[in-house]
């Protein structure tokens, strides 16, 4: 490459980098704006000009949101449901993925194809019959009712199966020779090997469940049983036109997942690319 070409290359490269950075800042700006607005007192929020930093920052909106709505209860519901779904889904999927990968039993191939096929089915088409099912079980307005239809994540089994497939068969055979119990093999040998995947999948499963809207919205009719993602949209009346209070509730609802992402950035991105069928 001659000098001219190299210079041209660098000039355009620099421009593209600068544009990317500016774009990123603009992209994230609405998030910043939402957070900043939630820290402004009522009269400042509605000023007819752009104020990028609150003149008198205040937590008043947060205190209002926490005391005048049932946001505390919604938090408890969201945590309970998200933890419940994550623990049950990860545990059952891991066991199932292990069995399909390592054991030979009748119906194994059929089960695998069934799981692959269910990947294509739109869960949101099933809302009517999920509702009928949960209502017949008497679980409307309960944590179990919010959780049940959300326990179906075929992709987690698929990822586990692929990971167990990569473990050399000798591992299992040696352990079987040593008379190790089947469960001992799974929990003492295979699980520790997949610890990274388990953490990554658990974090995204938690985030997915926390963020779920349609089903929690349908299966709960009583305000005190709502999850936080539904609650903050259903009780606008309580806020009136207090935008800042609504935004502070939004910040409270988004904070746990945003923090989970920022703390475990690498794990989250790993799990998300894995769940799309790409080895990260």
């Amino acid at each position: 490459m001659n000098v001219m070409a190299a210079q041209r290359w660098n000039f355009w490269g620099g421009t593209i980098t600068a544009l990317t950075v500016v774009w990123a800042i603009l992209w994230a700006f609405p998030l910043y704006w939402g957070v900043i607005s939630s820290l402004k007192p009522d009269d400042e929020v509605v000023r007819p000009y752009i104020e990028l930093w609150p003149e008198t920052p205040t937590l008043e909106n947060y205190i209002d949101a926490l005391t005048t709505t049932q946001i505390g209860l919604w938090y408890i519901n969201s945590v309970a449901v998200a933890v419940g779904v994550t623990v049950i889904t990860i545990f059952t999927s891991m066991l199932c993925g292990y069995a399909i990968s390592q054991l030979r039993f009748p119906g194994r191939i059929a089960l695998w194809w069934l799981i692959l096929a269910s990947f294509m089915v739109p869960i949101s088409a099933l809302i009517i019959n999920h509702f009928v099912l949960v209502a017949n079980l008497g679980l409307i307005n309960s944590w179990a009712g919010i959780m049940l239809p959300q326990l179906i994540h075929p992709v987690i089994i698929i990822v586990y199966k692929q990971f167990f497939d990569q473990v050399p068969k000798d591992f299992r055979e040696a352990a079987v020779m040593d008379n190790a119990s089947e469960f001992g093999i799974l929990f003492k040998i295979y699980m520790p090997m997949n610890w990274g995947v388990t953490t990554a999948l658990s974090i995204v499963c938690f985030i997915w469940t926390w963020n779920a809207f349609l089903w929690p919205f349908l299966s709960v009719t009583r305000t005190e049983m709502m999850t936080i993602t539904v609650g903050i949209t259903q009780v606008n009346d309580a806020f009136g036109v207090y935008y800042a209070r609504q935004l502070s509730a939004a910040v409270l609802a988004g904070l746990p997942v945003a923090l989970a992402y920022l703390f475990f950035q690498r794990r989250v991105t790993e799990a998300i690319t894995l769940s799309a069928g790409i080895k990260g």
Partner: protein
Amino acid sequence: MLRNSRTERLVALVLVGPFLAIYLLAFVYPTVQMFRISFTDAPLIGAGQWVGLENYLRLDNDPMFRRALWNTAYFVLMTVIPGTLIALLIALGVSRLKGRFQAIVLALFFLPYILPVSVVYLIWDWTLNFQFGIAMHVLDWLAIPRVPVFKSRVWFLPAVAGVTIWWTAGFSILLFLAGLRSIPAEIYEAAALDNSTRWTTFRRITWPLLWPITSLVFTIQLILQLKIFDQVYLFSIGGRPNDNMVLVYYVFQKAFQQNQGGRAAAVAVTLFVLVVVVSVLQFQLLRFAERRRR
């Protein structure tokens, strides 16, 4: 090697059992029921009479169903293609950056994806608020008349599509970045030695090698957006949902607001079939592309 296959089967049953129980109860059974009640006049809860294909035949003359179908198609068109292209552009930009700096810029693009839809709704409802939204100040400054975006029939779906691209682009960007990383650096070095221009390099190397990822992103987006409900429902609060009717919303309205389980199920089956057909097509397309590359 000798295997005690009876114990193995028993262990397999114990391991598969919990998942299978949940799967049959919460997935297979509701799916079968959905097809079954779509041939009846059942209300949301309770039994109905067998009516054959009537629920499906009615859809043919149902203007609201037609609107839902059109709006869904329109929404898909406005999100999937622009969304894929924007994500690709961003990924190309981000992939040039290095280390910690790249992580920070990527996080700025990715953060919206991690947030619940209701938070996305509240943030954009505020940003585009007709009276106080910051976007309206910008419009004033550009001397463009303000638009009540989510109350306007013309602007509603394009605006929701824009918000949806903003919300979901992070996911596609991540997949594109993974794809870009898997292209060997030597190919680019060879291109640089040949004094290949940036555009030629992209057209001859990046784009063809990235094609499997592009089609993956495209179909994941397509399937996701066919199921659009949350954003349309939320932005329609206090507005006119019937103007912005989409398929899942129609299922919701028929079943939960008009108590017509059977008719709603017929709409749900339509959506179901639509998504399965797209998925199968995507699967065949990928297989075809793979065979051609060999």
